[in-house]
């Protein structure tokens, strides 16, 4: 087993203190549950001189009501989120996404903020230092070639967090804290489709909380993912759907995906498919929209073609189930 490199820890008790340390110490990292960061440090993928432990920041650990919706602190654990009464009843897709992450142990410490900032993943990247060195490293860490697409100069590691799509179909916003204060932006705006720079947060910024709007009448959500084992596995592809049915027609439809690109993807153009029932023509239209926007690559052991098919299948069955129940 590889040894952990040396680092210092800082243990702030307020968000302001945490971002001040982050700004003062280049290369430092926030540590929430550590279920992603600790293995990555041990594998030599990242080597922060200072690790800023967020566990002591009480203000980040609460779920509060806000304008009929919820304000979820970034250090709330996945288990707390999945078991929260309002989440279980009013935000079913979010509950399903949180409850299906990793295993019971990881959900007790893994957090919402850590899941949204989860490093992108690839079979050539999530390996030991020894393995990666033997392979001359890869573009995302210390090397010059992306083995998934060797001709280009782009990294295709896949964003694989389960919560982001479930939050996106709810129209969630994030509170981003830095030394200059707090800004609030739609969750969709903090990502870009680049395996290395997937997060648009500035170095001294952190996610302090996520805001989900009040559940609107008749809007239902669901989340489903495909994985090798039925638990303790990252999504090969994950799909969140939100829809409203009025009589026979779908009047609101939102689809967001994970595991297919280097960022969680809010599928564009779904509003053009509303107004009628989910018949074959409508579903084929949706298949086409999705096929054009996703870009699964050979970053997992399951080939891109499989992940393309599974996304289409999961999306269709989620829509039909939510429509039938609505």
């Amino acid at each position, binding site marked *: 087993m590889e040894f952990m*490199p040396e*680092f210092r820890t800082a243990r702030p008790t307020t968000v302001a203190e945490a971002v001040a340390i982050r700004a003062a110490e280049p290369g430092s990292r926030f540590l929430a549950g550590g279920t992603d960061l*600790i*293995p990555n440090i041990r594998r030599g993928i990242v080597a922060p001189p200072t690790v800023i432990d967020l566990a002591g920041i009480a203000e980040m650990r609460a779920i509060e009501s806000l304008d009929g919706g919820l304000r979820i602190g970034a250090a709330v654990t996945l288990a707390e989120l999945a078991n929260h009464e309002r989440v279980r009843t009013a935000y079913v897709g979010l509950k399903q996404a949180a409850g299906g992450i990793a295993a*019971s*142990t990881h959900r007790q410490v893994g957090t919402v903020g850590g899941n949204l900032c989860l490093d992108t993943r690839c079979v050539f990247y999530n390996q030991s230092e020894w393995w990666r060195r033997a392979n001359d490293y890869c573009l995302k860490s210390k090397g010059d070639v992306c083995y998934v697409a060797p001709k280009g100069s782009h990294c295709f590691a896949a964003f694989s967090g389960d919560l982001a799509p479930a939050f996106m179909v709810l129209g969630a916003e994030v509170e981003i804290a830095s030394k200059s204060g707090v800004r609030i932006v739609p969750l969709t705006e903090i990502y870009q489709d680049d395996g290395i720079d997937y997060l648009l947060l500035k170095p001294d910024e952190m996610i302090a909380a996520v805001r989900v709007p009040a559940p609107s009448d008749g809007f239902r959500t669901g989340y489903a993912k495909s994985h090798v084992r039925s638990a*303790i596995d990252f999504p090969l592809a994950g799909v969140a759907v939100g829809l409203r049915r009025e009589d026979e027609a779908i009047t609101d439809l939102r689809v967001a995906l994970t595991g297919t690109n280097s960022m969680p993807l809010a599928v564009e153009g779904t509003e053009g498919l509303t107004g009628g029932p989910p018949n074959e023509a409508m579903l084929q239209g949706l298949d086409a929209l999705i096929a054009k926007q996703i870009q699964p690559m050979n970053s997992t052991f399951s080939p891109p073609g499989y992940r393309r098919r599974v996304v289409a299948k999961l999306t269709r069955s989620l829509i039909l189930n939510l429509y039938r129940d609505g």
Partner: protein
Amino acid sequence: MARNHITTTINGDEYEFLCDTEQTLLDCLRDELFLTGTKEGCASGDCGACNVMLDGQLVCSCLVLGVEADGKSMETIEGMAHGEELHPLQQKFLELNGLQCGICTPGILIAAKALLERDPDPTETEIRYWLAGNLCRCTGYDKVVRSVQAAAEEMRKG
């Protein structure tokens, strides 16, 4: 670098030790306190061999830093039996062959105990999902599940 002074309660006893910041809780238990009942399988959160209870929560001790345990209380496999008297889970694992090589067993026992404390009568599916983070290369899991079911029944009788 200066070492950190940590005070914790483990299985009801107070412990003090020094550790480096980059040592995981698992490293501290095994290498600083010589509590080697807790095992290292993967050191990356995949196998569950290192499971302990930290302030009432089931965690992979390989994913927690030793410094994070300061002021907290822990339960490890060393505290499961009372002297010669085995915990019903330990007893059933022995009777029903819930272990072979045994490397996964301390973690599975701690995880199963955490499950039965929150739900004394879990279904087979609930047991399998709860123990999904505990890998075993030997038993094929079936005997693990049977042992947990048998222990649950025993414990419900009181």
